């Protein structure tokens, strides 16, 4: 017997969480884009997709957010720090790859200087993840040594029952248990079996790829030029990636008042590293694509002991020219044979 949350009771849960002061967020369709957004009723939720277009990263690290407001006066400059809007939230229906993506970035935002914007949101958010029973050709969690039911980064893991009847509940963290206490009486004990998990085919040998990437000789390999020939540097892959975290800081305002903002940026852009002198350390698209792959599978794990990729496959799924991490690592797998 396991605890079950039946689908027809989900709206009661949403009500319960809302009355407990939580903002309920889930996968929805907004302007023809599938994304995560705050909802009022369970009926708004759309669980039909393998994975929404946009990841839950946006909820912790928005595309653009104010850091401070300034007012310049005659003798002084007044500044107000803008902290993110506070308040507990529950994300219902994250995917294991997205949830683990957030956990992957914790050490980055926490090393040395602790990023308040990130951790305030992390600490105030319960992530309820639904294990995947469907996958598409781009899913690659298993190649990253994860699985359709990975628990990393999740507070609760739900395993779907057959026929969309509901979910088996696995409470993973105190934060998750706390949130599910509110709906304890709605959950039912049942022995309904979980639906079979999605089968995600292994697409490349990660260890072999990492070994190849770590070999300094391969840094200058012509492979990089060949694989990135198609890249148009649009940065879709980095913006949709749950773990890509690079940002820019820009001021926006007039002479006397304005806002300093933190905006997403991307290593795909030439201006990202361009010096004032015009010298650019990563002056070609191939150098920039190499940086992205090296960062995710060599530099980041070297520093934080975890790959900066959770296998969601959005980079390949949404790429306008059909290249992405999967294609690149598949090619590297072949090279390292």
């Amino acid at each position, binding site marked *: 017997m396991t605890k079950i949350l039946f689908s027809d009771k989900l709206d009661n849960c949403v009500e319960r969480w809302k009355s407990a002061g939580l903002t309920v967020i889930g996968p929805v369709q907004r302007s023809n884009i599938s994304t995560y957004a705050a909802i009022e009723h369970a009926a708004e939720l759309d669980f039909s997709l393998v994975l929404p277009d946009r990841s839950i990263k946006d909820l912790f690290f928005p595309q653009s957010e104010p850091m401070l407001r300034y007012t310049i006066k005659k003798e002084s400059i007044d500044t107000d720090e803008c902290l993110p809007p506070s308040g507990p939230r529950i994300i219902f229906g994250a995917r294991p790859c997205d949830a683990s993506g957030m956990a992957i970035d914790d050490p*980055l935002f926490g090393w040395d200087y602790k990023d308040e914007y990130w951790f305030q949101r992390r600490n105030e958010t319960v992530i309820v993840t639904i294990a995947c029973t469907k996958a598409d050709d781009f899913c690659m969690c298993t190649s990253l040594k994860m699985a359709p039911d990975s628990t990393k980064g999740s507070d609760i893991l739900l395993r779907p029952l057959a026929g969309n009847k509901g979910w088996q509940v696995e409470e993973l963290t105190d934060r998750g248990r706390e949130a599910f206490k509110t709906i304890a009486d709605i959950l039912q004990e049942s022995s309904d079996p979980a639906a079979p998990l999605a089968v995600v085919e292994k697409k490349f040998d990660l260890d072999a790829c990492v070994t190849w990437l770590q070999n300094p000789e391969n840094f200058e390999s012509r492979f990089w030029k060949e694989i990135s020939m198609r890249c148009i540097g649009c940065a879709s892959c980095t913006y949709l990636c749950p773990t890509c975290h690079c940002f820019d800081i820009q001021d926006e*305002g007039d002479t006397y008042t304005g806002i300093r903002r933190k905006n997403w940026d991307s290593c795909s852009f030439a201006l990202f590293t361009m*010096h004032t002198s015009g010298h650019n350390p990563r002056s070609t698209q191939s150098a920039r694509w190499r940086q992205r792959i090296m960062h995710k599978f060599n*530099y980041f794990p*070297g520093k934080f002991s975890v790959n900066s990729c959770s296998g969601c496959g959005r980079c390949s799924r949404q790429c306008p020219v059909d290249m992405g991490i999967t294609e690149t690592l598949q090619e590297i797998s072949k090279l390292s044979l």
Partner: protein
Amino acid sequence: MKIVGRHDEAPGVRTMKLEFQHPADHEIFKETYRTGMFGLYGVYGEGESTFCVASPETRKDYIECTFRQSGRVTSALANADIGDLITFRGPYGNRFPIEEFHGKNLLFVSGGIALPPTRSVIWSCLDQREKFGKVTIVYGARSVADLVYKHELEEWQERSDVDLVLTVDPGGESPDWKNRVGFVPTVLEEAAPSPDNCIAVICGPPIMIKFTLISLKKLGFDESNVYTTLENRMKCGLGKCGRCNVGSVYVCKEGPVFTAAEVSLMPASDL
């Protein structure tokens, strides 16, 4: 921070002297600043730019910074007047371990607008001159007008305990130029400072660093005795925004000061 002094060094290059407005901020600076560290200087509405603290760690009552006016932020900084307020974040990054240089000869090699970071180390050492051996400075710029800190170059030239070699690129000399003409690495090889018991501090545009490293190798310098500072584009200065890294190294956290031995482990084409 308040601008309390301005000085034009070369066409488009300006030094500003800044004083802390809040004693608490000044205390933190005094406790943490060591030569080689950098800061983010900013003007609200325009943004922030990264450059070194050009004043030495032996003079912490103020901050001096030297910059070339070229983009949005540096133009706004150049337009700021004495008495105006600008922002400063820092000091960030690592430092030149000058106490490890005690008792050693020092060779400074610098080009163009890269004298400011070198100058911070030079004065940090000259302010405690007795702790170091022979001091040699090789400095070059594109033209005579482009040499920065001209008043200090004169001072160093007159000091008997400093050996200053000045050069300008071919074509950059003026009719009354009495110093060398030639590129920094070539002039350095001609000056041929001895690598014995000597620490080299080099700073310049990437192309100058590349060839100076080759020249130093020819002169017999060990890579672990050669220090340089990498100045990559930065936004956060806190190891998060992701643009300053060369290979696995975050220049803002693990740098900007590296030995040539450390630089040689970095992917050369990403420098």
